[in-house]
């Protein structure tokens, strides 16, 4: 079934890696134009799911449809932006040279480089070498290198790790501005408190999807007062159930 309101559809998705069963029967829908949080402890399979969506993960079985076509289809390379967990940029180049280069790869207009650098708050560092930046600034260069192509779907693996709270709030505000323009963001995080900043939540544990919900529904269903307690309540419930 084709549905233009859905950005990502998974049905019975499994991934095996090095003999381990990393993702088990994942079934989910990510609506377009929303910020969807992919939350779970480290080792729960978040990065593997993200890699499957982007089409770089081997040994994926089951159905995975991205923007209406199977994940990994060449036509998606211009439409999906991917930001890896470790900043994947060139340390020996300037911020602008990095973003401009990745922009050229996706056919973005030259002026987009400066714009996306400004969007991540690095306008005053555009000429600085990436090697001379802090860890948080580096990961924002990596983010700008994905924003530059204005992808329909932006997939971000732990983009807010190690950032100070003000910056984190600014980035989440930016994610929502991008989503308001009809684009979709899938953002992973192991910090449960970030759940409240998302439109929808996917909770992952041990390769299984524990919940596909909204922050408000999660709190109401579990009666918890914060995201971490809600997550624990869900896990307890899953373990008590037969």
């Amino acid at each position, binding site marked *: 079934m084709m549905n233009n309101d859905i950005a990502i559809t998974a049905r019975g998705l499994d991934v095996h890696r090095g003999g381990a069963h990393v993702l088990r029967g994942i079934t989910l829908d990510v609506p377009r134009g929303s910020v969807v949080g992919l939350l779970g402890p480290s080792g729960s399979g978040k990065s593997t799911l993200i890699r499957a969506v982007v089409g770089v993960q081997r040994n994926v079985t089951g159905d995975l449809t991205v923007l209406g076509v199977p994940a990994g289809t060449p036509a998606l390379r211009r439409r999906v932006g991917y930001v890896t967990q470790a900043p994947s940029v060139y340390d020996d180049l300037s911020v602008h040279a990095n973003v401009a280069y*990745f922009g050229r*790869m996706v056919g973005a207009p030259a002026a987009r480089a400066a714009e996306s650098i400004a969007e991540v708050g690095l306008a005053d560092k555009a000429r600085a070498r990436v090697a001379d930046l802090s860890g948080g600034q580096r990961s924002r260069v990596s983010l700008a290198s994905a924003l530059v192509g204005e992808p329909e779907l932006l997939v971000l693996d732990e983009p807010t790790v190690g950032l100070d709270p003000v910056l984190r709030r600014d980035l989440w505000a930016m994610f929502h501005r991008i989503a308001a323009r009809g684009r979709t963001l899938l953002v992973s995080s192991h910090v449960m408190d970030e759940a409240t900043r998302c439109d929808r939540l996917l909770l992952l544990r041990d390769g299984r999807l524990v919940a596909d919900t909204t922050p408000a529904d999660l709190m109401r269903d579990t009666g918890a007062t914060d995201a971490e307690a809600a997550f624990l309540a869900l896990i307890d419930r899953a373990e008590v159930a037969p």
Partner: protein
Amino acid sequence: MNPRLVAATAARVLRQLRADHRTVALLVVVPCVLIGLLSWVYNGTPVFDRIGAALLGVFPFTVMFVVTSVATLRERASGTLERLLTTPMAKADFMFGYALAFGLAAVVQALIATGFAVYVAGLDVRGPLWALVVVAVADAVLGSALGLLASGFANSEFQAVQFMPAVVLPQFLLCGLILPRDQLPSVLQGVSDVLPLSFAVDAMQAVAARTDPWGDVGPDMGVIAVWIVGALLLGSLTLRRRTE
């Protein structure tokens, strides 16, 4: 293959190279120092004229092999390669971008090293000097192509650097500089007849010895071209979009 992406990648690689002043200095100065040393060692003998030109082909091959294998390994380790392969960039764009960048760097290196060898060290070259530069650039591209292939088998920069003696030294021993190839034991001669550095050295020596060297240089360049294409094709198999 998309020429725009090849050019953008070559420009990016050259920008990285240019930012690294010490590497640029080493690329240019080391061949000159070694050629100067060699002409001094063999001062007053005909040996320098026999092997000097051949060495002008060995330097770009060796240096570009190391530089490319380490640079590509870095792209694999830092995640930039995986990121590039999620964009519309084709594997060929990546590889030809590298080959173009290091080919251009080799032009600069070859011009300076050849100029030094002829005008400072007094190397006697009968053929056209620009032919030395052309062969040197082909050798550089060959070194880049093999380096790209080798980096696919290295998990660390330590391993990548070790591939240099493993790939380059046997070819150096068999290329005819230590002992003319027709005097090698027949098995080794057979091996040297397929190794690319043998043809590079052969072409360089032909340019040095004859005013009209094209009868030798043409076929030699053909073999080098086949090696370049073969290494790039095999190298493309080591660039994988989907990984574990």
